[in-house]
């Protein structure tokens, strides 16, 4: 199958059930809201070692935030409820509370709620003030620039993590540029994030390793430098592979992200250097969700 001349391999991405939450961070201006959002989503590329996978979902205008200030919507994903709870509170405390002028609100309504500012309130040392408005509780914690306002709880919903595709390219510059096109498209789609740096990952992994202590290691089948000596899946024209990992609140959101970004790449000037588009999977036995590239692009 080809779209606009770009070859789509007959394969699928394998993704997993996860738990997700959304928060909205606001500040006096867009710059400080972004500083806080970047800090919150820092070191949150993979659950393997970071605890959660998080990213900025979208920028919010003054009319879209609860306090009428500019803000950012953040999505965070984790494999377990407890890990999500722990990471959300820790990051709220260390990255948002500390950042000047910010406030933090829940971005999800759900029956299942997890703490956001519930324990952070104790930073107020007894001077914290609780406010309940329309069934939601907010905490006002006095800080040196005024006060930090934080919603007590945020929603937690089932989600999917690990949707992906691989761009197999003739050269690194085109591969990276094509990835940037894809990430740019996906940044405009709601309910999804691309958690890796700049949305792109170069170190795709396989399950297991020759070293017993490691649960994952380099995906040698897609490493161009090893094509002669391993069971490579690359032909001789492929000199660079990059992956885009997509986490979303539903399969439809991920489908949309994959479809729109691949169409955008195929229409870009970089498509001539893309040898094919593949996807990362583990044989279909580990993940609960399979995203078949050709089905999505039909």
């Amino acid at each position, binding site marked *: 199958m080809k779209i606009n001349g770009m070859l789509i391999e007959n394969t699928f991405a394998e993704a997993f059930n996860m738990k997700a939450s959304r928060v909205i961070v606001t500040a006096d201006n867009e710059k400080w809201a972004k500083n806080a959002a970047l800090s919150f989503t820092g070191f949150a590329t993979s659950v393997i070692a970071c605890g959660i996978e998080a990213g900025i979902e979208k920028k919010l205008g003054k009319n879209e935030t609860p306090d009428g200030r500019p803000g950012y919507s953040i999505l965070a994903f984790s494999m377990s409820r407890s890990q999500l709870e722990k990471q959300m509170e820790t990051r709220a405390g260390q990255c948002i509370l500390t950042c000047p002028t910010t406030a933090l609100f829940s971005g999800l309504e759900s029956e299942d709620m997890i703490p956001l500012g519930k324990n952070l309130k104790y930073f107020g040392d007894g001077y914290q*003030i609780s*406010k309940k408005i329309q069934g939601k509780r*907010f905490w*006002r914690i006095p800080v040196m620039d*005024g006060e930090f*306002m934080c919603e007590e709880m945020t929603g937690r919903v089932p989600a999917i993590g690990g949707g992906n595709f691989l761009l197999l390219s003739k050269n690194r510059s085109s591969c990276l540029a094509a990835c940037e096109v894809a990430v740019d498209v996906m940044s405009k789609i709601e309910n999804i994030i691309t958690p890796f740096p700049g949305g792109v990952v170069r170190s795709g992994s396989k399950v297991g390793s020759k070293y017993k202590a490691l649960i994952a290691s380099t995906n040698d089948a897609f490493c161009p430098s090893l094509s002669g000596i391993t069971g490579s899946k690359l032909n001789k024209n492929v000199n660079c592979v990059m992956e885009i990992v997509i986490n979303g609140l539903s399969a439809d959101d991920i489908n949309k992200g994959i479809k729109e970004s691949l169409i955008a790449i195929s229409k870009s000037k970089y498509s001539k250097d893309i040898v094919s588009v593949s996807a990362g999977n583990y044989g279909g036995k580990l993940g609960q969700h399979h995203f078949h590239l050709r089905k999505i692009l039909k």
Partner: protein
Amino acid sequence: MSALNLKCKINSKHRLDMSWLSNIKSDDVTKLKNTKINYGNKLCKVSELFIVSGNDHNEIKITNSNNRLDNIGHNLKNKKILIEGNVGFGLAKNMDSGEIILKGNAGDNACSGMRGGSVSVYGSVGNGLCSLPTSQNEGLIDGFIYVQKNVGSSSIIRMRRGNVIIGGSIGDDSCLEMISGSITILGRIGKNFCKKARRATIITRDRSICKNYIKANKTDLTFFNFYRLNINKILNKNIIASKDPQRYFGTKSKKELIELFVV
């Protein structure tokens, strides 16, 4: 399904306890019409006192109401009641959840012991709004109350949490022993306001009470604008217009953490 409509037929000679309204569980109108309620010293069918139409018991409309209909919305749970006309005492007493909209005035002891839900009164309310119900310690446990005009004296006693917005004035001896919560009063405030209160947030235009409080530094507070936007959005009206209030925090006796925004 259409809203259950109760048109009051009588200009009551006796007071009529309407607390039965909160307990309707069936959409069967015939059954409701034949339900017997106390009126004076006799039992009357609902159909003798009201013209009943519609069948959705979760959405009730009372028309031609008068100030002898008491305890409307008593212990109300998850129902919406719209009232056209005045009502007697005990409106929304011990209300749990749901919504009451009153296009008229309410009598004494409205919202006494309210635990949740929303009450909007497009008129005035008598004495003892959110007063202490018998054998209970808190006058308002939670909920949202909007009164477009004035509120009588001895109102809002021992408020635990919730939001009260008063478009007019409030009488003497109000907001006593407040535990927490937010109150906006756009009119005048009576004597002995907020005595023995522990914590509270008061938004007011009446500067006469400022002398009892400590003027705070002019710091930016996210809360005020957030609260202002939310209240204006809920009421669909620019109730709190000022974006730059003067804040007072703490009483001069330094015993209470009362926050005052003068707008």
